[in-house]
């Protein structure tokens, strides 16, 4: 799936990336370029319905991130 939203570095649970797309929030799993923090981005990835340490929303396993 492809999601467009705002990328934000989040310091919860040791740190993670969160993508806010409208009312939905995804925890990004995988490699995310650090210089896109705070930017509008487009993320390609696979939504995962599993469980995790971040507990902020569904996880999105990232295959690619690019600026919007």
């Amino acid at each position, binding site marked *: 799936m492809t999601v467009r939203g705002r990328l934000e570095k989040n*310091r919860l*649970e040791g740190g993670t990336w969160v993508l806010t797309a409208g009312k939905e929030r995804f925890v990004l799993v995988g490699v995310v370029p650090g210089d896109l923090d705070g930017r509008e981005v487009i993320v390609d990835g696979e939504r995962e319905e*599993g469980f995790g*340490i971040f507990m902020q929303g569904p996880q999105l396993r990232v295959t690619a991130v690019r600026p919007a």
Partner: protein
Amino acid sequence: MAKLIRSARIPGAPPVAPAARIVAAGIGAVAVAALFWSPSPAPVPYVAAEAFPVAIAEGTPLVIDLVDGATPEQVATVSAALGAPLMLAGPETADAGLYVAELPAGETDAEAISVLQSIGGGLVEAAEPEQSYAATEVPAGPTAWLGFPDDPGLSAQWNLAAIGASTGWRAGGGRGVVVAVIDTGVTPSAELKNVLPGATFVPGGTSSADDNGHGTHVAGTIAQATDNGIGVAGVAPNATILPLKVLSASGSGQTAWIAAAIDYAVDHGAQVINMSLGGGHSDVLVNAVERARGRGVIVVAAAGNSGGEGIGSPADAEHALAVSAFGPTGALAPYSSWGKGVEIAGPGGDKTVTGGGITQAVVTDGKVNLTEFQGTSMASPHVAGAAAVLLGMGATPTEAECLLLDHAAPGPGAADDAVKFGAGKLDVSAAVRTLLFARQGLLFAVGSAIAFAVSLLAGLRGWARLGTVLSAGVAAGGLFVLPLLPLPPTMLGDLVQRPFQEWPTASFFGVAVAGFPLWQSAIVPALAVIFVSPSRYLGPLAVGLALGVGTYLLYGAATSDIPLWLPMIWGRTWLTVNGTVALVAALAGSGMLRLRQPGAAS
């Protein structure tokens, strides 16, 4: 309040609310860091001054966030447009593009922001007037007494002071209790020694070692090596960790792995399960939690980090202790999930406050590092550690849960406290004190009273009466006030603060062994009476021992507080018979003592 209505409130124990003071502080790096790291939704560029809750005076400096890695030429462009030099906001803010500008006399913030808005190309990401932040003073960590504990990082552990952890350290610190940490794994180190081999449920995994850091941090909150001269402390330093790896290095895992780990924990002797993880609702996980609780295992789970209402699984299981998080001020942490399912709140940290996170040891590249984390994942193990302390003292699982909930400290007093804090904020000290007085104190008093009555009946005088009464009280309830004294815990202290019947079990072999029927019997006191009671000096102690043990066993028969490896009805019968035998032995022994007293034969 909560998913469960738990009864059996035990009176006493005033709660200890953590100090929460607000002091004024400067701006500078704190303000920049707060802007840069704010966990709230991303800052909106070009926020007008009136949008801030704090009044901003005209003419204050502007903080300007340029694109990351802005070149000197780009900085000069902005400076020229503004008509003011741009200064780095801090010593390491060039890469982040954070600058401060003093505006020329007569120019307002609004005018300057308007100028900055006109610069195109995405060069200026945000600009706003500098403002003072009310910095929160993080409360100090627990006080060391007589050099205990000597962990150098203790002063940073405001979280342990907030829950009164030191009382739990002196009350056995969870000795003999196994706590399963279902997480990313656990890596043992000099700072985390009591770790069982554990298991991994992640496909392809070969060990329960931690490849993320989260699980080791969580385990550290529960059982960090304490008073070892390095690092920091934990809530229940004598508890044993059973690491069950269900989350991969990325911190994610699947329902089946977690459910299997819960069952594994129960089958392998865990008395407490901590799950600092979550996701959407899962009937499978809820059922696994209920199975575990049905077999006497306390299950503690993080409420979640959504910052809003609603908690997921496994915290939403009816018999899970769902834990929300509060920060160093005592307020609910901004990230913490909340709702009707929240049972209790624990310290989860708030890193918007400098030093406001939860510091524990994490192993990275083979080295132990102290690391600050925040999240409800950090709050949950505080509760799990507290449960371990209470179980180690001899509380039943239900009793431990009731103590934690009934003696939680009140929230801030808002109308929504019940959904945000559940029963309140974790207070280990209050729960421990209550258990000491309600169980051991009661036993001490009853054992002493029975011994006094028997002494009078037998006509004992002097040392015979005094020794018998003292021995009976200590045997029945132990030196129960010992954990309330500011003394460093020792193995000897751990022994003598407990009832005699709990000496070998909790202190050496673990509480699971406490139910061995031959130990929960009249054998030892009866033998003591037979062989020692003829002694003028030791005889009164032997008689007192028998009276104390008899009191303890009969108390267990009446309350089912003593775990026994027998079905309920047989267990009660066993305790009743043996308690009675111990009392009869004491009566016989006191008769022998009377005969040996001067003038008794005349």
